[in-house]
């Protein structure tokens, strides 16, 4: 077995890492833009069927990636309703699939954070004559570190999943091959060094993300209570 530096210096490895990050970060950005307002709206809104929506959202956190991949595949395939965009087997399709996969995670976790804070602040804010957008912004600002955790949970899920990107991306070398799909392929081919190198990078990324989330939350807890 090579040493770790040798494993990480293999040709093509860092291009694969870069594509993985591009796909997953784009998906996180899109899912955050949609998921945070959605979660906040469900948290403070009162509408018929709200409980069912919350249960559904929580259940969707456990969406199986391969099922999301299959659904997006059907949507984007040439005969599908969105086939005319020609997205299938491109990084764009992978971003779409991962966005759908992690949107419920970000929405459900931010819904919980905002709702807990809202329950605590509601009467006090109304007593101070604060309502509407100003009240919503006050609560969102106060739970900003919990929202960061929700976003990082989404990023962790996106960067670690293999099923969805494999199906809609096709694992095409130099085009849609990302860390997880490469690991799956190279392992079955018996080319362990590349799989191992990518595995190390992937674990390092997930570790760093979770450590960062933990440190930020702890620091915020000490600083702001």
């Amino acid at each position, binding site marked *: 077995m090579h040493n770790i530096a040798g494993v990480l210096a293999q040709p093509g490895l860092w291009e694969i890492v870069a594509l993985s990050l591009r796909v997953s970060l784009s998906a996180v950005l899109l899912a955050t833009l949609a998921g945070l307002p959605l979660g906040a709206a469900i948290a403070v809104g009162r509408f018929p069927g709200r409980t069912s929506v919350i249960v559904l959202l929580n259940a969707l956190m456990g969406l199986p990636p391969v099922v999301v991949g299959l659904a997006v595949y059907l949507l984007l395939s040439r005969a599908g309703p969105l086939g005319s965009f020609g997205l299938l087997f491109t990084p764009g399709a992978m971003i779409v699939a991962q966005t759908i996969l992690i949107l419920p995670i970000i929405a459900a976790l931010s819904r919980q954070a905002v709702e807990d804070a809202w329950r605590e*602040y509601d*009467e006090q804010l*109304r007593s*101070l004559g604060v309502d509407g957008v100003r009240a919503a912004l*006050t609560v969102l600002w106060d739970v900003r570190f919990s929202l960061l955790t929700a976003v990082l949970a989404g990023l962790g899920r996106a960067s670690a999943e293999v099923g969805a990107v494999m199906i809609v991306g096709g694992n095409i070398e130099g085009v849609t091959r990302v860390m997880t799909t490469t690991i799956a392929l190279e392992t079955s081919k018996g080319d362990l060094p590349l799989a191992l190198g990518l595995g190390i990078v992937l674990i390092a990324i997930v570790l760093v993300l979770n450590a960062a989330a933990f440190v930020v939350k702890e620091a915020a807890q000490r*600083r702001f*209570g």
Partner: protein
Amino acid sequence: MILPLRLEGVSFRHIIQPLSLAIEAGPSTIILGANGAGKSVLMRLMHGLLAPSSGRVTWSDGAGRQAMVFQRPVMLRRSALANVAYAVDAAGMPDPGRVAMEALKEVGLAHLAHRPARVLSGGEQQRLALARAWALHPEVLFLDEPTASLDPSATREIESVIRAFDASGTKIVMATHNLGQARRLGDEVLFIHQGRLVERASVERFFKQPGTAEAAAFIKGELPWD
């Protein structure tokens, strides 16, 4: 002047039975009753946090400047000073920073101005809640069992701030089940029992000569639960 506050046939679900009363400017009003009697709900109806199921709550000149301090203080995740300044700014008053600092001095918290509000002790947070109310110069201050979860020395500090409010001309309306506190701070008592206004009297008369059996039992410590 926003007082008197009038409640006409006000009820709330099954918790408050229809009642009518007027709260006048001047004497400190204590809403007295056992746990679950409806004190907190009655205050929230007065302050406008709850809408009555029936009846009307009216102020003589609009809802005006009023503040409420809750049993458990709710502080935003920012400094003590910023919490008070937030309220001043929300009320549309000028110079929030300076007004907030003066209010902190008034309750003896100036030295903690830049500490995060939520890491202060329970007693300090409640004093901070009073500073937040003080900064608004309210005509009426509602207090919902403000010392129920505090130790005796923190309770004394809170009571002295409440006296300062009274001295500055703010009308005090306070819910409590603490008889000693009612005697120390109150001028008149509204005694609530099972959602009904059972008795209204001056503090002296209420404790010396309660007019109803329920009030007499409550004073003697035989909480009537039936």
